[in-house]
């Protein structure tokens, strides 16, 4: 059932990501709502579920956005794996403080954006550090900033 709910939320978020989020983009920096969903799911259900979820949602996103198939599934799998390292089964406390969740989203989203951008330009002579900083960390910060309103909905995950 949790996959069905996630899939419904995913389709709503994809519509928002492709239609409304471009209005909020600053140059190429745009928040990634799917990345937030993958991270939160992995924090709740662990890295195996998180990776599988990230792979499937990434693949679906590539298919319905007209992008390069496999790019998002790669980056979202990494996202799910890393977020899963902070899941319930791996920590002692029952729930995790929201600010920690924001930091996890920052880390996972930055790496997600980094891998997506790096793989899309892998044939070019690109500066890895520049991609990590400009096209990884900056959109990651923007994404985690957008995740802050989640605090109003749920204090602990």
């Amino acid at each position, binding site marked *: 059932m949790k996959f069905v709910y996630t899939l419904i939320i995913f389709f709503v978020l994809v519509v928002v990501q492709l*239609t409304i989020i471009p209005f909020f983009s600053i140059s190429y920096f745009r928040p990634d709502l799917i990345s937030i969903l993958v991270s939160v799911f992995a924090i709740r259900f662990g890295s195996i579920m998180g*990776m599988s979820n990230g*792979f499937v949602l990434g693949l679906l996103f590539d298919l319905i*956005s*007209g992008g390069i198939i496999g*790019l998002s*599934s790669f980056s979202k*799998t990494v996202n799910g794996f890393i977020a899963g390292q902070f899941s319930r089964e791996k920590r002692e406390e029952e729930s995790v403080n929201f600010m920690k969740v924001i930091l996890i989203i920052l880390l996972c989203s930055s790496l997600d954006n980094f891998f997506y951008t790096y793989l899309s330009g892998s044939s070019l*002579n690109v500066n890895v550090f520049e991609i990590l900083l400009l096209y990884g960390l900056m959109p990651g910060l923007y994404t985690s900033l957008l995740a802050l309103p989640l605090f109003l909905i749920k204090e602990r995950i």
Partner: protein
Amino acid sequence: MKSGLMRYLNSFKQYILLALLLLLSLFLISTNKNHAVKNIQSILFGNFALINYSVRSLFSKQESDELLDQRKLNAELMLENTLMKSRIQEDNTLRDMLDFKKYVEYPLFAAQVISKTGSIFKGQFIIDAGSSSGIKNGMPVLTAKGLVGVVTGVSDEFSVIDHLFNSQLNVAVKIVETNIEGILNWNGSELIIRNIPTTYDIRPGFQIVTSDFSTIFPPKINVGSVLLVKSSVAGVLSEVVIDPGEDIGSVGTVFVMLIENITSLSDVDIIQND
């Protein structure tokens, strides 16, 4: 022994799954040119773009027909103007004037950009016109200011455009004032023409148009102008940085040039770098 192995594998199962999923993703990236994969993608993308289009139309105002006609006229005038300028440059070659209206006669089909996707290296648009409007893969996309990109994916009602800020798109271009030919490419931060001998006198402001040798784009469509010329370390070859005619990031209305006999995308202009 068997249970020991199972226990061992179990302790590494998340890493094994990670490796499998990443390998599968890389395999999928390599299958992007496959026709079956493209077909599945165009069906899914076409259906979902319909939802995107409906949602986006709630937030953005549709342009009036009058404004759209005006934009179309501007685009046609731009094409004619660029051609005229080139003709002045080539005047003493006395080429066949029957060619004069060769591409101005290609009809332009107006479309709205409904979504911008991709990354800094692979910029893409989705537009609200597809095969039902006569759009096919490989058709050039432009605005009143110049070339914007090329159609790379088509469903019934929507199309995917690879715009100039896409490292997979290589455009054969010519510097009008000097007649130097080159290949224009996006390197992630700049639009550049590589390997131009430094002996050529190229100055900022020189106009760039599509080349006569282009297999995808009709010749003499405005692309932009020279921004600066960078010499390589050896000082023998230089890189010419181009300022695109159109502000690619804020494009709203585009025109697809409905060319009947378009060349396959696998030809010279578009080189898949996967």
